[in-house]
């Protein structure tokens, strides 16, 4: 049995539908787990994809330590052979703790999953995403996190799963949350966008990012930034793409005034198409580009926005 730990807000997050999909395709029976306030509200939705849904709304279900305890307790009770979690920041904080509790192998940030005799084989990226590794673990129970946007979402089951409310014995975690800020964007979320337009230091000023935003709005794209643009205070950190920012894999990634440093490539190098606009023909970004224009972005971008508008 595969235990699938689902992320949700008012409904299941895309990451949850993706790992439910991965679990369905691995062919074993699927138990969805919903932990925390509001879990009950999404139980019916989860029951359409899993044969069993375990729900717990205990107020102590917050923080990595308690969530990890809940997941490991439930996987032991349910005799799971595989625990799947989202490869979000949150998921990748909890999953290793679950593995330690279960003394289980942990496979991290999988892009491809396949069953093997007595265990699991995965692919994932290493060396700042320059290398694809195949890993395998054979054990009574394996813990695996799955890279967002790599899995086809789950299919509706013909039969609705059973929903169970479960009780857990948790203690206060010892961590107090003093405050939270959620970065909102009026555009499509960067990690879910099928098109991304990213600006780098070449933009020269925060005002010039209007060029990036206009193109993004014409195309319905998400907006990204390099670390250089974020460090300069031109853009919020939530827009940063790369090793220490977000990882994206859109159909097309349009990089404007971006040199293409390894740390940036590690966050976007798997994009299906890469488009670069840079005045320096030697910029490393052109080496990984499918399409590009060598020229001054101040001249190119207005023309590109006009050309894109004509398409609409």
């Amino acid at each position, binding site marked *: 049995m595969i235990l699938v730990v689902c992320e949700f807000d008012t409904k299941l997050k895309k990451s949850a539908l993706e790992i439910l999909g991965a679990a369905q395709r691995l062919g074993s029976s699927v138990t969805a787990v919903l932990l925390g306030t509001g879990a009950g509200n999404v139980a019916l939705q989860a029951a359409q994809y899993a044969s069993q849904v375990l729900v717990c709304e205990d107020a102590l279900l917050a*923080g*990595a*330590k308690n969530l990890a305890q809940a997941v490991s307790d439930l996987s032991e009770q349910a005799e799971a052979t595989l625990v799947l979690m989202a490869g979000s*920041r*949150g998921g*990748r*904080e909890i*999953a*290793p*703790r679950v*593995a*330690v509790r279960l*003394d*289980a*192998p*942990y*496979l*991290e*940030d999988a892009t491809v999953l396949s069953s093997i005799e007595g265990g699991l084989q995965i692919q*994932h990226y*290493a*060396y*700042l995403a320059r*290398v*694809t*590794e*195949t*890993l*395998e*673990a054979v*054990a009574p129970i394996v813990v695996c996190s799955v890279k967002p946007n790599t899995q086809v979402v789950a299919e509706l089951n013909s039969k609705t799963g059973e929903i169970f409310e479960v009780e857990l014995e948790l203690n206060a*975690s*010892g*961590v*107090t*949350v003093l405050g*939270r*800020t959620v970065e909102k964007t009026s555009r499509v979320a960067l990690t879910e966008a099928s*098109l991304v337009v990213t600006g780098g230091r070449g933009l020269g000023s925060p005002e010039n990012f209007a060029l990036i935003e206009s193109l993004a709005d014409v195309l319905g794209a998400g907006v990204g930034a390099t*670390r250089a643009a974020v460090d300069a205070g031109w853009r919020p950190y*939530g827009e940063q793409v790369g090793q220490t920012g977000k990882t994206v894999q859109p*159909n097309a990634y349009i990089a404007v005034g971006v040199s293409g440093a*390894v740390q940036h490539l590690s966050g976007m190098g*798997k994009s299906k*198409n890469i488009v670069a606009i840079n005045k320096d023909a030697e910029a490393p970004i052109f080496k*990984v*580009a*499918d*399409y*590009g*224009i*060598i*020229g*001054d972005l101040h001249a*190119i971008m*207005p*023309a*590109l926005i006009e*050309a894109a508008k004509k*398409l609409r």
Partner: protein
Amino acid sequence: MKILCLIRQVPDAEAKVKAALGKVDLDGATMALDGMDEYGVEQALRINEGGANTVAVALGNTRFEDAIRRSLAMGLERAVHIETDLLLDVVSQAQILKAVVLEEAPDLVFVGGQHADTDSQALGAALAEALGWNQVTWTTELSLDSGIAKATHDTDDGKESLELALPAIITTQQGLNEPRYPTLPNIMKAKKKEIRKTTPEQYGITNSKVRIVSQEIQERPRLNKLLDGKDPVAAANELIRLLHEEAKVI
């Protein structure tokens, strides 16, 4: 306050990574202290100025000594090197490191937020769980006051400020600080600093729970259709046409 910094030696970001016969080949690659670990070393040195009671802990092969010396040259006091050629899974690493942490009894342990070789974010969390400690991941701000840490960290959709009691694990993120460069006199001093050597076997770990089946460099072939932007309008129109008709992405 006593502080441990877990460090790793990884290929330099600019190094060309090669793979042959299904295995990454690091012979000849320039290796360096992981940039994410430098943030932890720097923060330790800001908390304990002069480096008193700061210890580097490294789990890896002989070549890790270069990274250890670098952290000592930045200013850490001494080091523990658990020397091994084994590539261990993160749970096994956490079991070994737990034993070292218990020997050293620090108040705070810094761990790199994501390692530049395994691309893993797991070690800080795994070690925290092995120790039964709390932890802050992707930490961008940290202040300490009589055994209580206040930290701000990056989450999936923004930021969060937390308060927690020590001991704790802090994993690093860009923005935490600007790591210093070692000075020449400090590089010389670092050569004489103590590196205590031990092995995983001393902690009862002899094999990994995860097997590396293969490592490949899968570069997506790129079309490399580059247009000259001297005539911006013509180039822009052609690019939009290519994206629409050929790539079919807009």
